[in-house]
């Protein structure tokens, strides 16, 4: 309620201010001020977006809108950025058609009133969706230049770096830049009576608006287009590779991953598995891998030729549990430490010449390239296998999942270190798992 009151208060203030500004625009006949006024109108849109986002958090998914209303936020951001850009386009068009002569009038007053209200709104209302988009979208050309300038400025005065670097808030930036260009316009018209400056500054403000809004509308538009966010792709690829090295998995296809609102990922994938693999087990493992990243997940498992009955006989009976049955018997954590499945797969291949579906030839190499333990460690068959089987799991379970889920953006950074830890750890207990799997194989 408090936030709601704030938003409503600022909205009414904004309306008042916009009305004043529009009046001054028509009295000064200045296009630059009109272009600047559109920024105030944009602030109104952003307040509306804020309102929508607070409404969205209360709303539950309905039957028709099964993904919930988080997307409404994205749509509001997209619509408001596009509307402002269209306004800027109108300014440019008007420039081409009728260049008017501007008067000074209340130009300076208008500028400062607009700047004050804009900054007040920006700084006092916590606008979640726009804050997110302005963080996540690529930086605009205005930001690039300011960052470049301020980098050299911070070389002289290091204290400024906390304010100016790495990049400034785009909305604050465009408000400042617009006000600056309006001040220059005012000065030049006042001193030299250069009326053409008004046009130039209107075009400049329109271009800056374009530059600021374009990356944001591209970002939110991509969310609306159900695309895979490009910063996620590396992580996703890694997970999918891990999935495809799971025992029994032949390939992953039709993978669709996209963001529902700002942040939460949804997706679906089809996983083709060997005929003799255990569907539910593979499904559980695939889901377990992907679920930390993709919160709304659907995995379809399919087999080729499932109508044809499996080969029966003692040979298949002994070979078919190569991976699946074995792992299920051993317990989960052993499988989830990622170096073990390929190992078992290779064992299964040696032992199982009659498997009807061939192994996927293009299956990528095991995920962890640093010191994969299974390769370097000599297999040792212990005389008393039954004793060893239980040893490692407690420890294995500890390390697995030790990588904390720290949010989507910085997970890519967090990941390598944790996997490194896993690798080191595997060096220690790889021997055990290897040993026990072999011991299982050798004892029929």
């Amino acid at each position, binding site marked *: 309620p408090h936030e709601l009151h704030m938003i409503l208060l600022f909205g009414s203030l904004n309306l008042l201010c916009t009305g004043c500004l529009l009046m001054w625009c028509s009295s000064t006949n200045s296009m630059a001020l009109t272009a600047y006024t559109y920024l105030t109108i944009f602030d109104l849109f952003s307040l509306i977006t804020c309102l929508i986002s607070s409404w969205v958090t209360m709303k539950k998914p309905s039957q*028709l*809108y*099964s*993904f919930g209303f988080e*997307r409404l936020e994205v749509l509001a951001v997209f619509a408001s950025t*596009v509307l402002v850009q*269209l306004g800027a386009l109108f300014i440019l*068009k008007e420039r*081409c*058609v*009728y260049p008017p002569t501007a008067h000074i009038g209340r130009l300076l007053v208008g500028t400062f009133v607009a700047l004050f209200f804009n900054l007040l709104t920006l700084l006092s209302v916590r606008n979640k969706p726009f804050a997110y988009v302005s963080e996540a979208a690529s930086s605009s*050309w205005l930001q*690039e*230049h300011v960052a*470049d300038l301020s*980098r*050299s400025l*911070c*070389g002289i005065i290091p204290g400024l*770096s906390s304010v100016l670097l*790495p990049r400034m808030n785009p909305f604050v930036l465009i408000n400042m830049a617009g006000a600056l260009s309006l001040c220059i316009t005012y000065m030049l018209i006042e001193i030299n009576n250069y009326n053409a400056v008004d046009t130039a500054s209107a075009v400049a403000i329109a271009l800056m608006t374009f530059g600021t809004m374009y990356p944001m509308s591209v970002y939110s*538009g991509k969310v*609306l*287009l*159900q*695309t*895979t966010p*490009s910063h996620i792709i590396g992580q996703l690829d890694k997970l999918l590779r891990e999935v495809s090295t799971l025992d029994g998995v032949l390939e992953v296809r*039709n*993978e669709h*991953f*996209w963001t*529902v609102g700002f942040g939460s990922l949804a997706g*679906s*994938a*089809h996983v083709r598995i060997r005929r003799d693999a255990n*569907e*539910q*087990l593979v*499904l*559980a*493992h695939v*889901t377990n891998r992907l679920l930390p990243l993709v919160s*709304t997940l*659907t*995995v*379809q*498992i*399919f087999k080729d030729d499932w109508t044809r009955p499996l080969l029966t006989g003692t040979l298949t009976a002994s070979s078919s549990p190569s991976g699946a049955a074995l792992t299920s018997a051993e*317990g*989960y*954590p052993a499988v989830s430490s990622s170096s073990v499945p390929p190992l078992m797969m290779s064992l299964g291949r040696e032992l199982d010449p009659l498997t009807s579906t061939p192994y996927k030839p293009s299956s990528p190499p095991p995920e962890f390239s640093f010191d994969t333990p299974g390769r370097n460690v000599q297999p040792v068959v212990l005389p008393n296998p039954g004793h060893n089987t239980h*040893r490692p*799991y*407690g420890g294995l379970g*500890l390390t*697995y*999942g030790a990588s904390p889920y720290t949010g989507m953006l910085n997970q890519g950074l967090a990941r*390598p*270190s944790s996997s490194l830890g896993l690798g080191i750890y595997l060096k220690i207990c790889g021997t055990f798992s290897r040993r026990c799997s072999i011991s299982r194989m050798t004892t029929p």
Partner: protein
Amino acid sequence: MDEKYSSNVLSGGKLGMVEVPDSRLTRYIVLLVISKVLKALGIFESYDILKAVHIVQFIFILKLGSAVILLFFQKPFSSGKVISKRQWIKLIKHAVFSCIISLLGFFGLTLCGPLRTLLLFEHSDVVVIALLGVLFTSSGGGPSKTRGAAFFIIAVICLLLFDNDDLMAKMAEHPEGHHDSALTHFLYTAIAFLGVADHKGGVVLLVASLCLKVGFHTASRKLSVEIGGAKRLYALDNLVSSLVLLPWVVVLSVTTESKVDSWSSLILPFGMIIFSVMILEFYVEAICNTKMETLRCARYGTIALFLSALLLANFWTHPLTDQLRSMSKPPQQVSTEHVLSGGVLVSAIFFIMSSSILSSPSKKGQKGTLVGYSPEGTPLYNFMGDALQHTSQSLPRFIKDSLKQILEEYDSRQIFYFLCLNLAFTFVELFYGVWTNSLGLISDGFHMLFDCSALVLGLFAALMTRWKATRIFSYGYGRVEILSGFINGLFLMVIAFFVFVESVTRLLDPPNIDTDMLTPVSVGGLLVNLVGICAFSHAHSHGSKSCSSNDHGHSHHGHSHSEHSHGGHGHSHGGMLRATPRNKASVFLHVLADTLGSVGVIISTILIQQFGWLIADPICSLFIATLIFLSVIPLLKDACEVLLLRTPPEHEKDLNSALEKIEKIEGVLSYRDPHFWRHSASVIAGTIHLQIMSDVVEQRIIQQVTAILKDAGVNNLSVQVEKEAYFQHMSGLSTGFHEVLAMTQQMESMKYLKDGTCIM
């Protein structure tokens, strides 16, 4: 501090060029500055001399004089290799080009005055090459270079627009007979043909010849290696070009009478110019380029030159001119001679800034993307980005391919033809407007052009739909159409809003509208849009009638917007049009609005023409704006629903019954998380999770469910089939960690190790 925040990789460890500290180079810098100051002086003086001496004669004397001195110093014939015949031919070509460039440069000097010439023409090669690199290649070298290029352009524009040089007026007055020779006369007529004032023509000429000069210098590098050094080439070049100019000078001096009374009084100035402009500067630059880096040399040289030019422009009193004038003509007021103006001052500042930015060494190392960490912990970077960017196909090829794609399919072909027709009409209108100087026509042309942007957007979206799916666009690009429909809807809303606001202001104060031009233009527009209707009548039942676009009182442009953008919009919903009855209704609404709007415009025109009811026009505009607004709302609502992933309303019933059927399949216990949404015109996607009994074969269930949902219209489906075992596995996998963690903590406290229990 700089390195800390920059993302470049290579400069981090000071791997780049090591700069020599300034203190060791002071001698050379001082020498450079002195030579540049002298050069500025020389240029100022040559401007004065050029008033009396013909330009060709002037250049001939310069070249000859410097050739004599250089022959004395350089001895190009007695030293070095023997020059072959082919090289002589190349030398002659080189000399001809250098003559042309100096002619252009000095002609620009006569037009613009010395200060502006120095500002425009005397840029170092590296600066200009960096500028061109920023403008015409994608990898300019970071935002600072872009800023430098922008400053350069702003400076040139300042000279063109804001520099009200008083002399221009005087120059414009001069009669055609004033021109001395055929050459200058030709150049003058060329500039007059361009339709700009003389001094602006001079600015353009100087910029063009600057580019020529840089290109010429780059091209002559090979020749200088062949000849044996830049200095030898320079000496020979001066000699040959004076020989080339000789016949012209002879003819000139025979045919025209000289304005100079005594050549002897000019010997000293000429000597000074030859020394400072041609010889000293050349040698000093050569030395400085070897002792310092070229970039630094360019930076100091340019700054010194521009500053001294500014000072000279302020204090130079044209001593020589007065002397010459006192000999020949009665004195005029000197104050009008290319004085310093605010524009020139600003542009000089911008030029200095841009040349110092552009000539600063680019610190940007190659940008890499962080790939990961090596086993030792050092970061690994990937530099593939640039290499990948350059593999994109060329622009003409892209245009050709996309044209082919457009023409392949019926819908996009129709839009394309309509767009072409619209554009052709627009350009005819624009040209006719410029020809007859009718503001109304021009503005209407711009409006039409603006409208076409919506059409282009629709066309581009239609084109993109056919692109293949990528990693990022995993479903394909079909949804782009819906997004472009949404943008077009917003576009229409904005247009309606503006028309509404304008018509309200007109309602309060109805302006005079002259309807003279209305008739022919409206007939033309009507014809164009009739063709559009014919073209669209099959594919989409709403083409456009744009009688309204022709009201050049520009009150009804809203209407013209409406229907052009509807063209694009209609297409972008083209696929859905077949699928959804609601879209058909909204499209029908559109057509209705269009028709009513155009009827309204015709009525208002008639009313104004017959009865002079000026208020009819804004009322019609209001009416049209409201109609557009009302008709856009359902379209926007539809697009919003698709974008918000609503269950497609036209499939709602089918889906519900399909879900009921699924529940009744043998072995299915229940379902959860059913998501169905329209991805694009042709794709309806869906995901569902099923719980089944443990003795049922999963694949059979998947097959049945897929078949049932396919009947309901879902064509991109993922079914997750779960048995009880799945939940057991999942609970084992996901909760195992926490349980085991808690357990081991317990165990540690108890100092007691129990082997792998309670995982399940």
